[in-house]
């Protein structure tokens, strides 16, 4: 990417999902859109990668082993390094209470499964474009 003739690194997105099929689909879509994608298969790995790499945005599944998406979001919000990192939750849990729980935990957006990969890309672009 270039900005005014100066090379800028690609934005880094952390994608976390214990379902490898979904994780690779999300990563593929975002990599094709020009993002560098870090992959995590559970909440603890995602937390470690987030604190190490300080990505520009995180796309997190809610139902993950070791640390679910809600708790992961709370922990990221509690750390100075990641407290302002945009977080999109991606999940099949579609009740209003689940959506509210996501926002209460500190998520910026919530995408329900089944989802459109194009819509996910658009939301990531919209969030990163505002920053």
């Amino acid at each position, binding site marked *: 990417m270039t900005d005014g003739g100066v090379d800028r690194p690609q934005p880094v997105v952390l994608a976390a999902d214990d379902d490898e*099929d*979904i994780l690779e689909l999300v990563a593929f879509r975002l990599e094709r859109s020009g993002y560098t994608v870090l992959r995590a298969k559970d909440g603890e790995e995602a937390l470690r990668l987030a604190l190490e790499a300080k990505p520009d945005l995180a796309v997190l599944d809610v139902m993950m082993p070791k640390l679910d998406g809600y708790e992961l979001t709370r922990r990221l919000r509690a750390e100075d390094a990641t407290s302002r990192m945009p977080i999109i939750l991606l999940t099949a849990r579609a009740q209003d209470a689940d959506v509210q729980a996501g926002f209460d935990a500190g998520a910026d957006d919530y995408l329900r*499964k089944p989802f*459109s990969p*194009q819509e996910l890309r658009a939301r990531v672009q919209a969030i990163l474009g505002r920053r």
Partner: protein
Amino acid sequence: MELLGLVILVLVAGSMLFLLTLVGRRSWIAYEARRRDAAVAALRPAAIELIEDVADPPALRGVDAEVFAELLGGYSLVVRGASRERIAAYFESTGAVDEQLALLRSRRAWRRATAAFTLGDMGSPRAVPALLGALDDKRRAVRAAAARSLGRIGSDDAIEPLITAGVERRIPRDVVSLALFDIGTPAVPRLLELTRDDEPLVRAASVELVGYLGNAGDSGPLPAMLRDTSADVRAAAAGSLGRLGASTARDALIDALDDRVPSVRVAASRALGQIGGRRALDGLLRVAQADEHEPAAAAARAAARIDPALVVHAAGRADAGPYLREAADLVEL
């Protein structure tokens, strides 16, 4: 003695053969699982490229073709829109949809059920008429699989048949509800039409689903249903008005606190608790103090939700009754 020895030898040989068969079978299963895992890892990129319209699908046969189809079937559960349409187009192009449609006519129930289920994962709208027919299959498993798949495909044509099948108990109501949830908000206009059906159970089921799938803007026809001749419909309408947060229905719900059927008064109380508004408090407190168990308890909890301090104060009166006191205790907890 020789005979005994021979018998022992045969038994030992048979046991060894049995053990070897078990070990061999287990090894074969493990080998097949590793092969399939390797095939999944190798074919996943191609499946993603198909879903993302980046590349044509590879020409596959045998186990690879099966694995690829399973991958796409799995993806069809988590994606929607153009991605899902591409999956359906793939299954059409390989003849897989036609194959499953033929199996849906099999004499064996398990084949029909499997085919009905698989057609949902394939996502082809062309399967809808056959699946609608399968809602009348003589086997419950086939009917349930067809209902699930009609929800997965998301056909508007399936809404009324699904509701009817649930009302007639040909398909469990939970299966019908899940199928309609899969269809989602596009089902709401048809459901609103069905709230005017001649059959009370159809009206009740439809209005209940509007409450789950719709939004406050869909609540227009619902207050009138609080005066339906069927108590099931009145209760379902009250429940849906609460879930939709339809504050414009507050007065109608307050009137419903005087319904002659307890379940309707319960539903109206809960709805008022969800919608809020101090105007409901007089009616709720009256029901909480004077009504029978379930409506009184529901009214007390609803009042506590709207104004906890008022309920705590009201519970201190001599004529408060056990339900207000219980609600006040819960507030103070």
